[in-house]
């Protein structure tokens, strides 16, 4: 509760006593004043900071027309059970107006294990689709022409292997590599920081990533080779400021790695993309996205010497914050998602996933995912917010907050540099500890009621009706294992052994791994076989369990 003003205080000082709280702050803990004015956004260098849409430093957007020219890609993340089930969900979403595909893989696939590995027991097809071999990839995209749809794949540790299978599936469809459009997430640094689906230690992982940069620059020019992701950093409990700072620091690390691998920055930087979370604090999220674009542009031009404007432009996908969704009164999640999606659009996203209202309970049902997609369609086609570019540009508050987000992100860059860079900071547990601290603070704020979560710590219903949820039956695992065994029995095993031997030799010699992985995929080598081969050379990374 607000404190009473001190006796004898001047009249202006009495005003805070009439406010609901002694201090207002963003979710990142940035203090917010009652009102902002021109004094908060000094004119000096304003043109340099803000610019105009479509021009450096792109604070107001990377295109001059933005959504007047083309709406963002509506890309709902989907995947569960077998490749057949997910293929049906993809076709459903495309029929309902989704404009890009986004594949969710199950945990064994994300960790590079086959469906019949002992650790995979109970996990196959549960939270994503199981992909063991090229055969699964062929079924996943059966009847979906890969030259006509852009596909995003959330895959990191085994990104190179899954990408090789996708390329091999495209070959089977007769689609040349230079017609393929899409993204592999392939952001291993954030895996060590937050998302925990790594396989190999950081240094060989970075080598695999630069191999992908080089291969795609030559053969798959329209492919986004990495989606540098703040989403999971945020879901692990970071603040918006930490998400912004850590994601960009990772981005710089990939650029540095590419340059150190001997690549010209303008050859690979235009294919780097980003992925942010959009959480509840509406203006902070918009400011975060605007600041991200500006920092990237400035650093790419001034620190890394990129000359091609495409290297300066930060293109990003957004997803509404899964961690904000409540199992209590699940329908009200539709409202949370709407506000978050609106922030993503006002922040200038190129692509957006809206979460389904039942996701705090289980995988989304068809009805829930349709409502989530309709939410985007209403913002795009009914709300009018797409008629002008960066409609909040010039708002004293938004510009001040954008500057403040940038300032705080730069403080973090300095701290990371002092630790010797991103990989030493990961090895020291710096990011993990910062996120764990923020996450615990947030939990305490929710429990004390300092932060309201409607339906959880305020406006609680005594008797909750449970909505219908989607369950993946355990038989999925048996079906998947059967298919895997059939493939192992019917493929040319001599060709597989040779391909795996060549892969191992390439891993040891430093030769680019992608052509070798592509041959493994064509031969129907399994994901587990490819990953095990590289585990033998590179070793495995273990979680540091910092809390």
């Amino acid at each position: 509760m607000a404190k009473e003003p001190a006796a004898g205080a001047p009249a202006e000082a009495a005003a805070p006593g009439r406010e609901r709280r002694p201090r207002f702050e963003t979710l990142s803990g940035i203090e917010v004043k009652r009102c902002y004015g021109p004094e908060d956004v000094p004119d000096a260098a304003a043109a340099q900071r803000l610019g105009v849409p479509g021009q450096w430093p792109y604070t107001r957007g990377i295109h001059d027309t933005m959504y007047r020219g083309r709406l963002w890609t509506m890309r709902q993340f989907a995947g569960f059970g077998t490749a057949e089930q997910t293929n049906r969900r993809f076709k459903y979403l495309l029929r309902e107006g989704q404009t890009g595909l986004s594949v969710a893989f199950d945990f064994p696939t994300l960790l590079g294990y086959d469906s019949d590995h002992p650790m995979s027991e109970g996990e196959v097809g549960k939270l994503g689709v199981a992909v063991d071999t090229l055969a699964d990839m062929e079924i996943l995209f059966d009847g979906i022409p890969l030259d006509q749809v852009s596909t995003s794949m959330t895959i990191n540790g085994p990104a190179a292997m899954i990408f090789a299978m996708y390329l091999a599936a495209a070959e089977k469809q007769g689609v040349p590599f230079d017609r393929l459009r899409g993204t592999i997430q392939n952001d291993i640094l954030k895996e060590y920081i937050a998302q925990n689906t790594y396989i190999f230690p950081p240094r060989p992982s970075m080598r695999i990533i630069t191999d992908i940069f080089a291969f795609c620059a030559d053969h798959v020019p329209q492919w986004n080779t990495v989606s540098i992701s703040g989403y999971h950093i945020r879901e692990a409990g970071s603040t918006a400021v930490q998400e912004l700072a850590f994601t960009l620091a990772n981005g710089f690390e990939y650029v540095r790695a590419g340059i150190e691998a001997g690549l010209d920055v303008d050859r690979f930087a235009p294919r780097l993309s980003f992925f942010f979370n959009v959480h509840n604090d509406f203006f902070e999220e918009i400011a975060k996205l605007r600041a991200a674009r500006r920092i990237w542009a400035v650093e790419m031009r001034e620190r890394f010497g990129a000359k091609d404007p495409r290297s300066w432009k930060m293109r990003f996908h957004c997803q509404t914050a899964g961690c904000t969704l409540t199992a209590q009164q699940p329908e009200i999640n539709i409202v949370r998602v709407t506000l978050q999606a609106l922030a993503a659009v006002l922040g200038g996203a190129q692509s957006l996933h809206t979460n389904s209202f039942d996701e705090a309970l289980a995988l989304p049902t068809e009805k829930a995912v349709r409502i989530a997609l309709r939410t985007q369609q209403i913002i795009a086609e009914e709300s009018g917010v797409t008629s002008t570019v960066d409609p909040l540009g010039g708002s004293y508050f938004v510009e001040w907050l954008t500057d403040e987000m940038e300032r705080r992100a730069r403080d973090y860059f300095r701290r990371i540099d002092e630790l010797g860079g991103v990989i030493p900071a990961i090895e020291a547990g710096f990011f993990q500890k910062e996120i764990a601290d923020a996450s615990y603070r947030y939990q305490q704020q929710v429990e004390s009621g300092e932060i309201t979560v409607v339906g959880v710590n305020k406006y609680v219903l005594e008797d909750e009706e449970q909505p219908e949820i989607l369950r993946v039956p355990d038989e999925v695992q048996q079906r998947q294992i059967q298919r895997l065994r059939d493939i192992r029995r019917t493929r040319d095993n001599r060709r597989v052994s040779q391909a795996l031997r060549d892969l191992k030799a390439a891993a040891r010699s430093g030769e680019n791994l992608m052509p070798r992985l592509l041959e493994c995929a064509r031969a129907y080598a399994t994901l587990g076989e490819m990953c095990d081969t590289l585990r033998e050379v590179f070793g495995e990374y273990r979680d540091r369990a910092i809390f």
Partner: protein
Amino acid sequence: METTPVTVNEAPGAHGPIRVLVAKPGMDRHDRGAKVIARAYRDAGMEVIYTGLHQSPAQIARAALEEDVDVVALSILSGAHNTLIPRVCQALRDVGRDDVVVLVGGVIPAEDVPRLLEAGVERVFGPGSSTEEIVAFTRDAVARRRGETV
């Protein structure tokens, strides 16, 4: 994180702080809840060991035995709870640690809860449970358990 080693002669959990193993069974990668509860237990004066991610039931049971804990707090959001949680309970019995209090937190559909309780879980905490509530329940459960066995 600091933990105090327990000497071999000390009766398990008969006195001294409650020892908790926080564990993530299976391939689940989301450990935000596990880390929050680990810290809440520590702030409540308990001794906490966190296994880290990607633990098999046998690894969890072995850690429970070696660390001589009173409580195994399992966090799971992967949907594999029906397979993995009963296996953890069985693995604890196999190593002779069926006396520990087993708690589960995560996204568990209401209809699956009875099966987990039957397997040996003391209580399932769903989304929105407060750390205060979990800590208080843990304290009571251990006190009851110690009262029964001491």
